[in-house]
């Protein structure tokens, strides 16, 4: 399936540029290396969770419980580390197992007992929030004891030394060049439409400049944050899973036409349970990153993150009815949401106005999408 440079993609880029110009004019700090480094960590958290949401939205389901889940799973790991003195990797391993079990159970309830995902996960939202507060006893539990660092805290405090940043950037660019050339030659071999060679080269130049700019900016502060590398890995994995595995195709097929998917021999139940289990893994990862970013588990960690994740997906062109959505779009959607939050925090905008602005952007973005995608395909 071919990524076209459509007006929709441009509209996201334009919206993003406008947001950045606005905050850049309002605050000198916004486009500074320090803030952009922070923003990239915040993006990593929002976008990772949104990529999990994509997996659940594609077959036409939804998960409202992820925000509470982020708090709960991060909280379990914190309590194990800080109060029970488990080594961080062990604590995180246990928390991941809990997340996998919970999300697997929710997936199973949805497919076996036919309770709608909306209800199961709405229940989850409330239950996990309660469990979270029980686990941390409404206290503030740091992610590491005393001043000793651990891998948990390092998730958002470790930065790649500059020289490795350049190497990583170069490696990624080489991989992108190799990947696009290989894809192009394969498409030519199958006589599929391909973009002009000049357009491809132009695209690669833009990507090169973007990567270079990113690495230079990050290196001016402390280097590329570990969490951004985690996001990149998750994004690549989710892209590969949704686009290049039978499981991923099945997600699109179920969301597009469930009855046809059944008659095509697609294992609907297995697919959905697996989708939710993957969501659990991503919730755990996001939980660790978000809690580490906050420095400690507190009762508000994860609040409303499910809505940011859904908003990022929808802004990025994912259909709530299922069957449509792409990783690249979700990343853009998450970048828009993260930029807004970061900019507003920087300007010390009151929480009341922040809520209103986030809601307005979500509605505006979807309205724009509906307007732009009203080009009816040609009929039979």
């Amino acid at each position, binding site marked *: *399936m*071919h990524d076209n440079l459509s007006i929709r993609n441009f509209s996201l880029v334009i919206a993003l540029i406008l947001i950045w110009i606005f905050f850049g004019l309002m605050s000198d700090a916004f486009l500074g290396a320090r803030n952009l480094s922070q923003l990239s960590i915040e993006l990593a958290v929002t976008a990772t969770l949104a990529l999990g949401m994509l997996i659940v939205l594609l077959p036409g389901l939804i998960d409202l419980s992820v925000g509470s889940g982020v708090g709960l799973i991060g909280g379990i790991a914190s309590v194990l580390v800080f109060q029970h003195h488990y080594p961080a990797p062990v604590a995180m391993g246990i928390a991941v197992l809990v997340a996998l079990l919970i999300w697997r159970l929710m997936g199973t309830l949805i497919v076996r007992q036919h309770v709608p995902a909306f209800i199961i996960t709405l229940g989850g939202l409330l239950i996990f929030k309660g469990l979270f507060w029980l686990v941390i006893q409404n206290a503030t539990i740091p992610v590491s004891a005393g001043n000793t660092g651990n891998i948990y805290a390092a998730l958002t405090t470790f930065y790649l030394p500059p020289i490795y940043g350049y190497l990583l950037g170069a490696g990624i660019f080489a991989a992108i060049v190799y990947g696009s050339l290989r894809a192009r030659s*394969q498409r030519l*071999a*199958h*006589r*599929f*439409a391909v973009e002009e060679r000049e357009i491809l080269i132009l695209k690669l130049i833009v990507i090169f400049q973007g990567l270079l700019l990113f690495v230079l900016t990050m290196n001016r502060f402390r280097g590329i944050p570990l969490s951004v590398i985690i996001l990149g890995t998750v994004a690549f994995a989710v892209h*590969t899973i949704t686009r*290049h*595995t*039978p499981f991923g*195709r*099945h997600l*699109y*097929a179920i969301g*597009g*036409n469930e*009855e*046809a*998917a*059944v*008659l*095509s*021999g*697609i*294992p609907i139940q297995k697919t959905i349970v697996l989708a939710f289990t993957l969501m659990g893994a991503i919730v755990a990862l996001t939980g660790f990153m978000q809690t580490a970013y906050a420095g400690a588990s507190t009762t508000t960690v994860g609040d409303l993150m499910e809505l940011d994740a859904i908003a990022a997906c929808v802004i990025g062109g994912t259909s709530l009815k299922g*069957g*449509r959505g792409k990783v690249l779009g979700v990343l853009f959607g998450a970048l828009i949401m993260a930029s807004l939050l970061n900019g507003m925090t920087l300007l010390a905008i009151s929480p009341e106005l922040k809520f209103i602005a986030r809601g307005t952007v979500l509605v505006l973005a979807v309205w724009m999408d509906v307007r732009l995608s009203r080009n009816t*395909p*040609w*009929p*039979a």
Partner: protein
Amino acid sequence: MPQLKIQNLTKRFPGVVALNQIDFELEAGEIHAICGENGAGKSTLIKILSGIYPVGSYEGDIFLDGQPATFLSPTDAGAAGISVIYQELALVGEMTVAENIFLGREPTRLGRIDWNAVYARTRELLDRYQLPLDPGARVGELGVGEQQLVEIVKALSQQTRILLLDEPTAALTETEVGILLNIVRELKSRGITCVYISHKLDEVFAIADRITVIRDGRSIATHQTAQTRPNQVIREMVGREITELFPRRPGNPGEVRLAVKNLTVAGTHRHRPILEDISFELHAGEVLGLGGLMGAGRTELLMFLFGVTGRRVQGEVWLNGKPYRGTSPRDAIRGGMVMISEDRKRFGLNLAQSIGFNLSLASLARFTPAFLINASLENRSNQALFEALGIKAPGLETAVETLSGGNQQKVVLGKGIMTEPAVIFLDEPTRGIDVGSKQEVYELINRLTDQGKAVLLVSSEMPELLGMSDRIIILSEGKIGGVFTREEADQEILLAAAMRHHHQKN
């Protein structure tokens, strides 16, 4: 002066010319049939006349009563007296007949819906056209034929002068078709002009004053019905002579692929058996026809064998010489069976996705050596099938929703064939597709049986059943009504077999 005149109408879509300098004239008060294969441009023409494609999105002129017509929306067309009855009904099942008829135009008093007026005016309309409908009945509980009548009354309630009927009988039973044709005649006698679009030439010849044939987006000819014959119209629709309607090449039946022994099946939610004591054998290289009246259990038999619905009470199914105990479509496909459903949009296709996505969807495991789908392998198979089936589309990446019915059906067939089945269930494989595509489907059936595949063909069309089957089983009230060879069978014998258990019951 014609009531409606279309001159040099051209409609382009990216990469396709859907209508190419069409001319068309409509006289006031006539019934004018438009015939053409799927993809000939009939639906596009309707969408222009009804304002779905607004003025400016096409080239050419439309004159209504001699004045240029410039519809920007379906509302404009409605205001000018043009209404459309679409193939797919647009009714709200939860609402009553009267509520549906006045949906969006409810008469109000003091801002509240005047329900007395809604029901009184519905009653009046139903009486005027003598339609046997209850204004207070819930639409979802009506049959398809009755729902169609509701659509027509809805159109008539808004001062319609020209009524466009797009394949109105596609989902109707014979009796309902009769009722519909009478209503169209009644409308004509009241001075309403009707444009009747249908594949079914017997209906067209029964009802139309004039017939216009379009092919590949061009107007080919307009005939007075009395002065032409079905063969000529078919020839003009297809653009070639169809010498043999059912080109069945009987094969050499081989070993038994599927054996059903004394099978009794209960409905998922009912206790009464829906199939009783069914036994038959299906051989490699054979087309076994499965006939019967509506509700005789044909689709239910396929659905049970394919693991979709039904519960086994007793009996056995043997597949390729081994007992078969599968309970899901997944088991069935793995065992080497595949089903092509009669409702391709609902059960067959992922409309928003590409042809390639749909073709390989049921066979992805074969292209996945480890974890990732091998795109080269997949595309090679897709491309080969795309060419073998002669799907008319720009390429594998074309979205299925943009294809004509016949080409969509080929994609569904292709998806089934890609799974390399030994046994193929075809449920009404030619429903709603045009003469030319039918021929291609029949030819495909021949090729499949030549390759040794076993085909179980369900069809409601007697000529198709007689013409394409090597043997025919007739179901009657869930039981076997008779088994016939191709030579033994004729329409009367099959009909008698289909009625057999009705007589016993009454």
